């Protein structure tokens, strides 16, 4: 008989890193499905290329750096899929390859791999693509839903404000592959909440923050500030960003209060960029800037430690 000696605890919660990643993939499934349904074969190809590149890059890096190969934890797959869902459906295939490779190699692995990257890999890659190939990244096609109608290129609704709220909600407007259908994103959010992959703090605070600041900024300029605020949260990448990108564990604060400060900060930056900046969209930069602020939030947010309360005060 050979008894193992190890220190407590001897049991663990069944949820592992891999299972959490699978929950995220599961939550991305509705948005992916609607994206493919809406934009057809080009979307499917982009998604496949992006995912494949991400996983291959991770494998090659880990082999080359003689690190344990951990592609089976699915984190690279998540990055590849999220990046693809952030591309317009008619983006060229090499855009997906460059984006994925950049996300995995430069943003994730160069900084130490899973857990050590200070920026959300997919988000940083998107920012680079947006700055380098702005035309490819902002020429959106309207969803065809396999209706046979030729795809038309159109500007993002944010810059024309032509789409109706209902169209925004259902996803019958031009946009990125994963962003168009808000219904699918909300189903994904429910999956994330139900599996306890994320808590409500980041998605709800971020959307609420965008809503509040858009309303405030719209007070002087818009005829209907309330409608403008509603429009703001439903358009562009706010909802997708709030559910899938701002909630990335690695680049967000650890405590619920820290997470709410972080998410509120994103909302403010998004509203400022959209209303006062040169770009029509600010979700990417909002999340990246607050990713950078995350270590500060974690460092300076005080925690109440048991046994250090003031005399005479009840717990």
């Amino acid at each position: 008989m050979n008894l193992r000696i190890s220190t407590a605890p001897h049991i663990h919660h069944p949820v592992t890193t891999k299972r959490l990643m699978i929950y995220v993939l599961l939550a991305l499934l509705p948005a992916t499905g609607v994206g493919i349904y809406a934009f057809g074969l080009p979307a499917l190809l982009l998604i496949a290329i992006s995912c494949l590149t991400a996983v291959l890059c991770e494998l090659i890096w880990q082999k080359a750096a003689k690190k344990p190969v951990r592609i089976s934890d699915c984190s690279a797959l998540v990055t590849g899929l999220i990046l693809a869902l952030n591309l317009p459906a008619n983006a060229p295939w090499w855009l997906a390859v460059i984006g994925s490779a950049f996300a995995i190699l430069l943003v994730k692995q160069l900084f130490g791999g899973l857990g050590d990257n200070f920026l959300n890999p997919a988000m940083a890659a998107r920012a680079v693509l947006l700055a380098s190939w702005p035309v490819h990244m902002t020429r959106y096609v309207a969803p065809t839903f396999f209706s046979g109608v030729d795809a038309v290129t159109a500007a993002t609704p944010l810059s024309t404000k032509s789409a109706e709220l209902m169209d925004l909600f259902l996803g019958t407007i031009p946009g990125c592959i994963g962003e168009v259908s808000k219904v699918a994103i909300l189903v994904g959010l429910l999956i994330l909440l139900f599996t306890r992959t994320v808590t409500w703090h980041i998605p709800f605070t971020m959307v609420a923050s965008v809503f509040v600041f858009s309303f405030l900024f719209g007070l002087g300029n818009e005829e209907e500030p309330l409608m403008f605020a509603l429009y703001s949260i439903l358009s562009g990448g706010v909802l997708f960003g709030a559910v899938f990108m701002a909630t990335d564990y690695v680049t967000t604060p650890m405590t619920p209060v820290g997470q709410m400060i972080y998410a509120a900060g994103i909302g403010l930056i998004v509203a400022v960029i959209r209303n006062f900046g040169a770009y029509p969209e600010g979700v990417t930069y909002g999340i990246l800037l607050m990713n950078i602020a995350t270590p500060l939030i974690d460092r300076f947010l005080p925690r109440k430690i048991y046994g250090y309360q003031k005399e005479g005060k009840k717990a």
Partner: protein
Amino acid sequence: MLKKTFKRGIHPKQHRGSKRPTQDAPIENYVSDSVVIHMAMNIGTPATPCVKKGDQVKIGQVIGTANGFMSVPVHASISGEVTAVEPIPYLGEGNVTAVTIKNDFYDTWVDDLKPLGSVENVDPALVIPAIRDAGITGMGGASFPTHVKLTFKEGAVCDTIIVNGAECETHLTADHRLMLENSVRIVDGLRAVMRALNVEKGIIAIEDNKPDAIAAMERAAFGRVGVRVQVLKAKYPQGGEKQLITAVTGRQVPAGKLPIDAHVVVLNVGTCAAIADAIIDGKPLVSRICTVTGCVKEPKNLRIPIGTIVEDMIGACGGFSEEPGKIFFGGAMTGIAIPNIQTPTAKSTNGVVVFNEKDAKSLDESACIRCGRCVAACPVGLNPYKIKVAADASDFAAAEKLHVMDCMLCGSCAYMCPARRWLTPSFRFAKDKITAERRAAARKAAAEKGGNDK
């Protein structure tokens, strides 16, 4: 009734069924052929053996005398012949001296048991000396000498005694069964301590997943002035001393201080029953209830003479049901793994849990993904992920700044961690290092002071 609880903590739901095999199993008496009683059963100074090979001993006879205040005597738990007095290796703590007794099965008790009478009439001044002489230590697992706990420094005020019947650990049902089958003794022990310390409030705290124990203890407490039952939410670590105090009284124990600084003393239900045995019958602590469960054919709650060998207890439970991969004393959250089945039990052994090879498998650490589950779980409010980084880098000064010394090693963070990081083992190592450094510094300071005096 309002259910009380503490902040954060975990719900080991997936292991909720771990108590099921034994929670309805009545306590069975089991006596083996021989026992191995070691002398280091209490935290503090070990006892000194006072018998030699060939001696005949009776149950309750002192076989190890206490050494100073932080020490309690050790008693023979069976009658028979002493076959060995020798050092044995014990749970990685180095060698400890142990007395082996071969059972003659006459079960003769020592002749000079000195009962102090009923708990209503006992002389309060005699209670704490009697507790020490009975060799009573904390039965919940910590083995802190009970008489030390009940002796306060000048000016300390105690207004509440809490009896810990939470049993929040997985697998264990020893306290649960004791509350069902020996509820009056527990209340008697509590009342004896209340009388000795002149405390008017005694609260028996039980988790809401043991409704039968709550009912039994409420019956036993009925009509006893100042004694009541407090129902707590089932959550881990509800039975942790500090969590229990905060849940029941709303007070916090100041960092680095003792429960008495929050005017509370916490006693385990088993300790209370042992106190009642010592006062009413004059009997020292020679047996305890131990849950034997996991991969054994018939999981049981056994009342065993202290020093019973694990192998004998497994035999009493029908043997292993699967090839064992790991065996530990206590519950799965804080239990101590034992190296072999020849290991003897001690006064604090509340459970023997057998894991099969699959459950015993070692888990590989992977990278921290900063998910925050450890932060959400920590009942103390620490940042386990940060302490782990400091501890892994052997930066114990940084770990100390991050309050690693306030960590009570409950294991909640490590249980939750999806990357399976060895959080609690790292913290245990860091705490041991820092404690050793502090001791060395104190010794050095004392030596220098002594040098100056000359």
